[in-house]
């Protein structure tokens, strides 16, 4: 028998994820690692890391990383790419980091058409701090800071990054994917590959928003959480490719 599934080489040896049970961060990082392996990028990658649950990327991936303050990962990524255009530069950020505190940096990276790739984990809440209302919290969703659910009067509406970034001239690829099923995981990997490829081809900014579970702060079992992604989350955050200028 041949081994058909093993831990990617770009994952650090003897590493164990520190995420909660059933959290999709683990799958997203594995997909990134698989692509770094398959596309031969590990040795030329420099990543700017973010703050939140995504902060420990440098503990998991066997690549060069520099920490950026909360929300500034894409600014740091820009700095890296501008002095080392031959390197592969990507960020892995949460929704709070990329879509709230770092929204200006994110949008302007896209406007400039910076040759970097960004992956955003959308779990509709601030996970690390214990499940507060965030930019992607859905209407009616109960969090520790929206105890009666997100309403228009107090909180306004959720941010839809994949659609917003698709509107930017500098964006080459923007998609929203999910990790709740095998077909969706396969599609997610394809999308991340495309977001990486547009950088390598010098086409522009590549972006993938990944709908992800937060069973702990959603107070659900992992399987219930995936069911929630499948049935509820996709209503607010429809899956699909919103921009692909290579087509």
């Amino acid at each position, binding site marked *: 028998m041949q081994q058909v599934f093993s831990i990617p080489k770009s994952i650090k040896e003897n590493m164990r994820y520190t995420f909660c049970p059933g959290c999709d961060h683990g799958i997203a990082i594995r997909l990134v690692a698989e692509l770094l392996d398959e596309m031969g990028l590990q*040795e030329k990658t*420099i990543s700017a890391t973010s703050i939140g649950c995504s902060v420990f990327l440098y503990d998991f991936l066997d690549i060069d990383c520099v920490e*950026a*303050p909360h929300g500034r990962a894409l600014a740091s990524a820009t700095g890296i790419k*501008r002095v*080392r255009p031959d390197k592969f530069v990507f960020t892995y950020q949460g929704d709070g980091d990329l879509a709230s505190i770092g929204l*200006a*940096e994110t949008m302007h990276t896209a406007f400039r058409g910076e040759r970097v790739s960004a992956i955003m984990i959308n779990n509709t809440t601030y996970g690390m701090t214990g499940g507060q209302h965030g930019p992607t919290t859905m209407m009616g969703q109960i969090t520790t800071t929206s105890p009666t659910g997100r309403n228009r009067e107090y909180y306004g509406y959720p941010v839809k990054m994949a659609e917003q970034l698709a509107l930017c001239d500098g964006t080459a690829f923007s998609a929203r994917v999910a990790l709740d099923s095998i077909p969706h995981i396969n599609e997610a990997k394809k999308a991340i590959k495309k977001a990486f490829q547009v950088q390598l081809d010098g086409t522009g900014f590549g972006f993938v928003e990944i709908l992800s579970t937060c069973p702990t702060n959603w107070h659900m079992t992992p399987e219930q959480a995936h069911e929630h992604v499948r049935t509820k989350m996709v209503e607010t955050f429809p899956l699909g490719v919103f921009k692909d200028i290579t087509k």
Partner: protein
Amino acid sequence: MENKNWKAENSEKVLIKGNYAIAQAAINAGCEAYFGYPITPQTEIGEYLSAKMQELGRGYVCAESELAAINMVMGAVSTGAKAMTSSSSCAVALMQEALSYASANELPVVLVNVMRAGPGLGYIYPAQGDYNQAVTGGGNGDYKIIVLAPSTVQECIDYTYRAFYLAQKYRNPVIMLADGLLGQMMEPATFGNYPYPEVDTSQWALTGAKDRTSRAIYSCAPDEKKQIQRIYDLFKKFDVITENETSYEEFETEDADIILTAFGSMTRNIKAAMKVLREKGLKVGCFRPITLNPFPTKKIAELAQNVKNFIVVEMNMGQMFKDVKCAVNGLTKIDLINRPCGEWLSVEEIVSSVEKILEKNYAASV
């Protein structure tokens, strides 16, 4: 826009504005990328570099904010490249978070602050109100930044060179604290060559994990013991910086009874005031810290043993005054001549203020 072609190996004297001098010196120093956002009175630095960096095929980004600009610098310098940003007072306030990160992560960030008046938006007339902001910093946690204060356009060039060198040598952020007066003033100056050796960054810089284990630069510290050690290490490093890099300038302090102290471009006026006071028969000397951090505390303490009065002259409410007072440590009298901002204290004003202070302190006995 004035955009004369200053050559890298230019030994001749040229008449040049402070901001352009800083920008060209950065190019000569091998700055690979500039990231900035306009703010008066330093905008000419970005204007000059926007043209030059593109011409040279180096990095240039009109950042969306000062926040983004300094974080771009952090990314760029993490690869071992030399990079810088420049800004002014209220916008440097936005960069304090990044300076704390850059200190913790030991990233050689170079920041030029051409000071304007604060607090708040203030205005574009000159001031020295950012002494505290630069020296004690506005970021979180225990950290120290190297701060250089030029007083002439020539020093704007020299200290820009030095800033790039010290930043990489010690892997520590460096602020060059100039002011609107220097930024906007034209003076004769010589560029010369970048006088420092290139620093080897190969042991820590991010280049992609090829033929070596991966590197991660971060300050996140879930392990409390490691964090305690890290802070001790950072401060040990700063002790070495203090030992090696503390610099100052003194004029006629050998026989002085009174020492006038100032930093940055106010040094010019205290030197002139010293001459006038000497002509009046007063034994006046001048002392000027060049590195505001590390501060020449030891030297001031030494001088304080032999003089009767230190007088600090600055364009703020007495920010350096505190550090001089700390260094003097009760050994001698210390007074302050200041104005919060705006029109620079003139030589005449300094002379008459010194005379008033002496009258008050010694009842006309000096």
